[in-house]
């Protein structure tokens, strides 16, 4: 094993780790050695091909199909220089005050998160798309919502130079999405942060990290040669995401002192709804996600978002098989899509664990409330599709493959609550949250309100695993705001951390 010395080690380079690296980079000018370890590769520009399966292999854990323990849901999260910010659509919302009140973390205020969020909205060039760049798929969603009286808003997006490739979830081939790979990480490296890609962290020891660097056969070579390393550090910031971070801390034998570790996992379980129009519409050209509808967030616990996916993802999202399925798939240029997300409650039983080899395992049980929300969301989506002029709708929980426009007044009957059969219907999640939740007590939380792990002054968490409940919106801006807080805490305590270690 090779030994390395650092002052601060950051694990992960996504919205959390990338932000922490950027916010801690000024310490490099004062002699601090800051090293960031990222499990994934840094792809070359020409490696963003837009080909669905190829990019899923390069940029996602388990090709975007990480299965929960009982295999009723898949989870999509990135593994790359920039983490999941390489593969999100760039939707940039700030957490609401009522949601933060529900989080009820002593010492964490909405004003503080809002101020930090605004900083990153500006840094990431967040703005609204011009009307001329909004395609039919998005426009029809907005029109359908408005006709029904549903509240609908345009997504602010973190784009610069977007050419509407529509391939955001496969990594932008034009480099237009302002994730940490484009904004925070390059600046951090410029200031002296060393980023080591293809580096999987195996465990954390007392003020040290044990990690393995491998070669992947694609992407830029890692800054370090392949091999096993022990990196000593005065402070360690864990930002491996809401699955990776709890799993790493569990592999590091911290469960005994932190009973809440891995627990209270939430993820906004999601379904993709698809409708067919009688004529071609513009859908795969232009940005895929322009609008959201939070009309039912408080009353029924779900959100609707316009979206557009790729052939395999679309095929997988439809329930059933055979001729009807093929008929739906045969003309993708006629498809309109809606993503529905359930606002799921924190439950101590929903948790990240590790298996005997140390690989993460997610145990997730759907509450009746979440199942109810998903069915109500399917019904609302069907209404939006028909209000937008769709000829037929596919709802995964329906007793029929197609619901024709002529049956639009029978939506509740045709999408029954018992139609949502787990294991049959494709449920996915791209918003893993919790597992290292913030709080006041180690009995029911893992860190304090500033991300410091209870009882370990040198260990911090800075990602979505901090969320004590779900964000009820797309979470990346909130992750950046929290990581900014954590970095501030590390900077504030840096003199003591350095003195204690030496």
């Amino acid at each position, binding site marked *: 094993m090779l030994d390395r010395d650092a002052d601060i080690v950051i694990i992960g380079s996504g919205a959390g780790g990338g932000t922490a690296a950027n916010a801690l980079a000024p310490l490099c000018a004062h002699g601090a050695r800051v090293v960031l370890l990222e499990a994934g590769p840094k792809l070359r520009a020409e490696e963003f091909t*837009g*080909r*669905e*399966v*190829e990019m899923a*292999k390069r940029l996602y854990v*388990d*090709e975007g*199909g990480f*299965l929960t323990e*009982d*295999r*009723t849901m898949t989870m999509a999260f990135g593994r790359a220089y920039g983490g999941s910010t390489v593969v999100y659509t760039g939707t940039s919302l700030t957490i609401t005050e009522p949601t933060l009140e529900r989080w009820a973390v002593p010492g964490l205020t909405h004003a503080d998160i809002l101020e930090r969020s605004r900083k990153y909205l500006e840094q990431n060039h967040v703005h609204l798309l011009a009307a*001329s*760049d909004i*395609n039919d798929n998005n426009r029809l969603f907005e029109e359908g919502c408005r006709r029904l009286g549903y509240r609908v808003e345009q997504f602010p997006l973190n784009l610069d130079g*977007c*050419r*509407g*490739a*529509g*391939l955001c979830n496969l990594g932008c*081939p*034009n480099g237009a999405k302002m994730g940490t790979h484009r904004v925070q990480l390059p600046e951090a490296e410029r200031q002296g942060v060393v980023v080591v890609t293809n580096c999987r962290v195996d465990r954390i020891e007392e003020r040290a990290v044990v990690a393995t660097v491998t070669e992947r056969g694609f992407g830029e070579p890692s800054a370090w040669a392949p091999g096993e390393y022990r990196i000593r550090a005065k402070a360690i910031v864990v930002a491996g995401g809401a699955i990776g971070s709890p799993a790493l801390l569990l592999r590091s034998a911290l469960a005994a002192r932190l009973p809440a570790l891995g627990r209270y996992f939430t993820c906004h379980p999601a379904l993709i709804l698809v409708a067919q129009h009688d004529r*071609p519409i*513009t859908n*795969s*050209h*232009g940005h895929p996600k322009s609008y959201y509808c939070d009309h039912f967030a408080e009353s029924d616990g779900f959100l609707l978002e316009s979206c557009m996916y*790729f*052939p*395999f993802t*679309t*095929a*997988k999202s439809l329930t*059933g*098989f*055979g*001729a009807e*399925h*093929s008929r739906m*798939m*045969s*003309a*993708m*240029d*006629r498809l309109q899509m809606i993503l529905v997300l359930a606002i799921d409650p924190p439950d101590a039983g929903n948790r990240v664990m590790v298996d005997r080899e140390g*690989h993460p395992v997610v145990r997730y049980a759907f509450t009746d409330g979440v199942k109810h929300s998903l069915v109500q969301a399917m019904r609302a989506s069907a209404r939006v599709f028909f209000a937008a002029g769709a000829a037929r709708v596919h709802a995964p929980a329906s007793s029929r493959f197609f619901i024709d426009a002529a049956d639009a007044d029978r939506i509740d009957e045709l999408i029954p609550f018992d139609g949502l*059969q*787990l*294991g*049959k219907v*494709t449920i996915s999640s791209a918003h893993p949250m919790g597992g290292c939740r913030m709080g006041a007590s180690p009995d029911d939380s893992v860190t304090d309100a500033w991300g410091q792990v209870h009882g370990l002054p040198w260990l911090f968490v800075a990602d979505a695993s901090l969320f004590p409940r779900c964000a009820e919106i797309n979470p990346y801006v909130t992750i950046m705001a929290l990581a900014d807080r954590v970095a501030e805490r590390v900077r504030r305590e840096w003199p003591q951390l350095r003195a204690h270690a030496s």
Partner: protein
Amino acid sequence: MGALTNTQRQLLVCLAVRVVPESASMAGAPRAQMLSLIEEALAARPPAMQRQFGLFLTVLRWAPLLRYLRPLDRLGPRRQDAVLRWVQDCPLQAVRSGFWGVRTLIFIGYYGRPDAGSSIAYTPSRNGNAVLHARSRR
């Protein structure tokens, strides 16, 4: 590669025809590409999951014997569909999930081929806005 036996490959080709009827006309390189994508996706999964998948395929193949006295791949199309529909809606969640896995692998094999998009009117462009603006001018 090598995640599937020859018998499993043949069964998957048979199942693919029921799941994606267009795959019936595939032969040679496209069919090999479909199977290759399926095998690569399977090989990336933990060994335990690969074994469970193999076991599920075996059960799926032989389950119809009780009712039809023939394995799945020797039934006619209508009976094959009936069996698959029953499996898809099976009261046991683990069985439904198993079929979901089979179906998903077939979809990755068929729709994951780079050439699949053009036959289903999916034609993304790096400069999608140019296409979008040109169409809105029409």
